[in-house]
């Protein structure tokens, strides 16, 4: 599903400019979750967020679970000590946290937005190493999307690492941006 310019503008409101870290930009506050009375379904490219398919994270790169672009996944994570990340995360999480390894196949070059339901650390690792994010921010308020990170990806195989997650599950959506 494509995102209209208006929808894109709305969803990008809280996205910061290119950065080397995911957790904030100068002059932007690291967002805390807002108080919500009812969930708000995201729209546009983020609309699949509302209907996730179950998935179980891999414990290492060889057993990575496949993430499908445009299909949200409710991922069962593993205790961090059980995970061997192909690349050491910058924020690996403690022994009581959770994480896991997924795979992503990119067929067309473009910008891909990865939405998470928590503030977990996210790495996208390609053949040339960790991919640098081009923008990040938080999702539409009360949508359940806590964090979004954009990557400019070429066609190829990528490993998606989720680390330092407090809960044993996380919802993830990879969306191709126009």
């Amino acid at each position, binding site marked *: 599903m494509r995102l209209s310019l208006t929808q894109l503008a709305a969803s990008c409101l809280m996205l910061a400019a290119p950065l080397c*870290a995911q957790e*904030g930009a100068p002059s932007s*506050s690291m967002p805390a979750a807002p108080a919500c009375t009812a969930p708000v379904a995201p729209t546009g490219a983020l609309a699949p967020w509302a209907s996730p398919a179950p998935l179980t994270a891999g414990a290492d790169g060889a057993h990575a679970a496949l993430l499908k672009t445009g299909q949200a996944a409710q991922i069962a994570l593993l205790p961090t000590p059980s995970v061997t990340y192909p690349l050491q995360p910058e924020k690996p999480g403690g*022994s*009581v946290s959770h994480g896991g390894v997924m795979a992503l196949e990119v067929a067309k070059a473009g910008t891909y937005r990865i939405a998470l339901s928590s503030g977990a650390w996210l790495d996208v690792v390609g053949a040339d190493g960790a991919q640098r994010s081009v923008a990040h921010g938080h999702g539409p308020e009360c949508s359940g999307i806590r964090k979004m990170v954009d990557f400019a990806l070429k066609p190829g195989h990528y490993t998606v690492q989720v680390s330092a997650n407090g809960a044993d599950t996380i919802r993830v959506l990879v969306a191709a941006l126009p």
Partner: protein
Amino acid sequence: MRLPALALLTFGLALGTTALAGHSDKAARVELGRRLFYDADLSRDGTMACATCHEQFHAFADGNRTHPGVTDEPGRRNVPGLGNVGRFSPLTWADPRQTTLADQVSVPVLGTHPVEMGMAGQQGEIVRRLAANPCYRALFARAFPSGDGSVTYPRVAEALSSFEATLISRGSPYDRGMLSDQARAGQKIIRRDCAGCHAGRDFTDLRFHALEAPQPRDLGLSEITGKAADKGAFRTPSLRNVAVTAPYFHDGASPTLAAAIARHGLHYAAPDQAAIEVFLTALTDQSFLTNAALSLPRPGACPVTNRP
């Protein structure tokens, strides 16, 4: 070499445990403290380490206005950088009681105003988590050989403070006498207009000052002292590495150096403003931002022989 003990430690890690046999207790505490600094098991759900907010490439500041804790409670104050923090006392924006690094550890780990790492009343859980790791047991035994060497919360704090005391930043162009003419011009302005508070080798007098009318959401020093005269007073921050620690002020509400300078009521013509910023940028110690001895330990084998 600025950190001979850590450099030796890094060399020792490369050679294996035999090379570490002669290490001093102090070096062992630094090594242990470094691991603890990056360990999110010091937080309620294992998601926040000290390094979550104190990022090396920001000179161990944050880059956000404030940072929420593990319960999503918003942070109250901007995360300060840690360069040369071992020389500072008091340590924080507005609490004169925080005079030692070891005692200050409990503010983020156990504090509730706001909740940061969320371990209030859970010191035993911290000990349980760490003691479950054979490597930590060995590291504590090596770092604290005079007692039983067991894992305790006070030892966690002491080891963290030992590591933090090694966060020494003295390698900037300013330190090396490599200031451009423009930077020297900026230095003169800083000396004239700012050195009343941004004084000394680290550009801070470590005293509390009120620069503007107190804001109800954060009354600063008076929250601790109860004195009306202390309302809106905050401790002068160091200017070391200031170019990489934006945003500025206790509330992080000044996104740029220019905004922070203007918030002091100081307004300069463009050439002087540029000179000031060039000088402030010359206080950035790139080696401090990239020193591997201060960074996240690489995964792998435990650096000491495990003990039961």
